[in-house]
């Protein structure tokens, strides 16, 4: 059982890593951070947040030869 849960935990960590690195969980992280920092203001919608996040990502040198 413990071995099984350990493997499951590893798979979960890996999956979370993939989501984190691809930006799939960016909105969830934003919501968490927003609740911590500006609890009074309403948070952006998922679509609105994604728009800003993606535009911000392509401002500098991001890809190389």
């Amino acid at each position, binding site marked *: 059982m413990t071995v099984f849960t350990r493997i499951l935990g590893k798979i979960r960590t890996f999956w979370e890593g993939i989501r*984190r690195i691809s930006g799939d969980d960016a909105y969830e*992280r934003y919501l968490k951070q927003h609740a911590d920092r500006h609890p009074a203001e309403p948070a952006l919608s998922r679509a609105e947040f994604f728009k800003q996040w993606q535009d*911000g990502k392509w401002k500098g040198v991001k*890809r*190389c030869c």
Partner: protein
Amino acid sequence: MNNLQKNILWVLVALVGASALGGIALNRGESVNALWFITAAVCMYALAYRFYAAWIAAKVLTLDETRATPAERFDNGRDFIPTNKWIVFGHHFAAIAGPGPLVGPTLAAQFGYLPGTLWILIGAVLGGCVQDMVTLFFSTRRDGRSLGQMARDELGPIGGAAALAGTLAIMVILIAVLGLVVVNAMKHSPWATSTVAATIPIAMLVGLYMRSIRPGRVLEGSMIGVILLLLAVMGGGWVDHNETLRGLFDHDGLPLAWAIIAYGFMAAILPVWLLLAPRDYLSTFMKMGTILLLAFAIVLLRPEVKMPALTQFIDGSGPIFGGALFPFVFITIACGAISGFHALIASGTTPKLLANERDIRMIGYGGMLLESFVAIMALVAATVLEPGVYFAINSPAGVVGKEATDAVAKISSWGFPVTVEQMQLLAQQMGEKTLFARTGGAPSLAVGMASIFGSAFGNSMLALWYHFAIMFEAVFILTTLDAGTRVGRFMLQDMLGNVWPKLGETSWMPSVILTSGAVVAAWGYFLYIGVIDPNGGVNILWPLFGIANQMLAAIALCVATGILVKSGKLKHAWITGLPLVWLLTVTTTAAYYKIMSTDVRVGFFAAANDMAAKLAAGVLPPEKAAVAPQLIFNQQLDAWLTLFFVTLLWVIVFDMLRVCCRHLAGKPVPPLSESPHMPSRLVEDYARD
């Protein structure tokens, strides 16, 4: 493990690595197993990472894990975010690893397998990795500033301007040569052309999906895109067998080049979410997947390397590009050994994500080690081909002749036997009409990869594997093309904004169209010339790109050396000084040959004069005479461009030496721009993410 066991382990790693490398280097006449390349590389990387990188981290840079990084100090949840080191490593590697380490080693294989292998290993461990690591460190200590800003702050305005001009120039050449690689892969190949064309609507569909249909679901969108791409590869085969459809996608180089130029312009002015961002997701997933698959297949299959250790072309008579082993192997392989472009990434997004300074060794040094490994695999994929086949695919028609019989006779006469039937069978297996004269590295790499994948996972799908490999290369070459055009546009807008502020507004459409058009016209020109050049264009463009990239690396190393000396670390300044001296030697020698050599395949002026003389004498066939004036102009332009690069390089070197000498003589110099020490509040082993 106790200390003794650890020591024994490292001695073993050293012994295995040394014997693998010795075996590769001293072997003559027999084929070598590719596994030895992998073994030598892994052992060398492990030793360098464990000892050299650790020593630099502890003794030269003195990384301070108690010091707050810019990500912690400016944490804004957008660009500055303290991030887990594995995630940063992934971002950093995805950013630095482009098509460069695949193309360079493939072209350099014309010298044999040994020069490329040695330069990739030694260059990375002593040069490229060090450059990436110290640039990342210095930028982290300076609030994540860019290389150009650091050059201006630490050396002065001349250094800053040189870095900026160098970056813009390298971008133009890089995009042109990459465009040429794609054109040569698609030329008269309906399968490849239709597959590559299909990637554009697929990327747009994924963009729409992520933006409107299911906003922000990046993984879902990417998975759909990857599946569609794989279907597009198969669909290309169907197009190829359909008589009417295949005519639509069967084109000469020139119309394809125009299509790429038009595409580049569209990509630069369309919003990022529609084309650039989704294409980037697809290319990153394809890239990671294919690299893993290739590593897995090489280990599983352990193919024999058939290329000799050295070929006769080390004397400079090589068919793919002219020029002797020294200095041209060091120019041809930039990415994979040392690449100046990385300094832009290491001083761009990456330092803004670092949660702790101690991660710098793994991300800066380790990231480049992995890219170097990709280059080794590309070299293996090129050298497992029969040398005759390798040369038949890569030699331009201008060197070996247009007719298949002429080409095989010429290549066989060099001692690399190949027959027309063999090439026909191979082309047929790969689902192509011909594989002759597909200069640029992508097709021969694809044939190499297809034969490796084919033997590992079944030979029946060779054509699919070949076009999968072509699609994979094209997808991320086009990503680099889009992203590079965009960065070039931003830089140009930034510069023009100093003259007329309105032009500097990145969202003002007339400025966007004007600056995008200018950048596209610049690389489009070199791409156009490359396509009409009967010698394949790669012969001209790739060395130019190599010189530009090594020049940028030298600028980064100059900045780093200057900072080391100014911080009182003269004693250790050789860690960047040594690779700098080597790059200076290589780049200057290469530039000298490209400008002054009387060999028409090496010297730009020599080639221009030779062609002018032939044109005047009327000995050129009419189709060559028609384009000759343009080629002559281009050769002269390239010579001046080379001169510009090398002058820029020496300007910044003297600027660095001037600052160092003044500092050592106790005279005033621009002060160190390091931000003050602030203790980190992030607890040990805990990054808030």
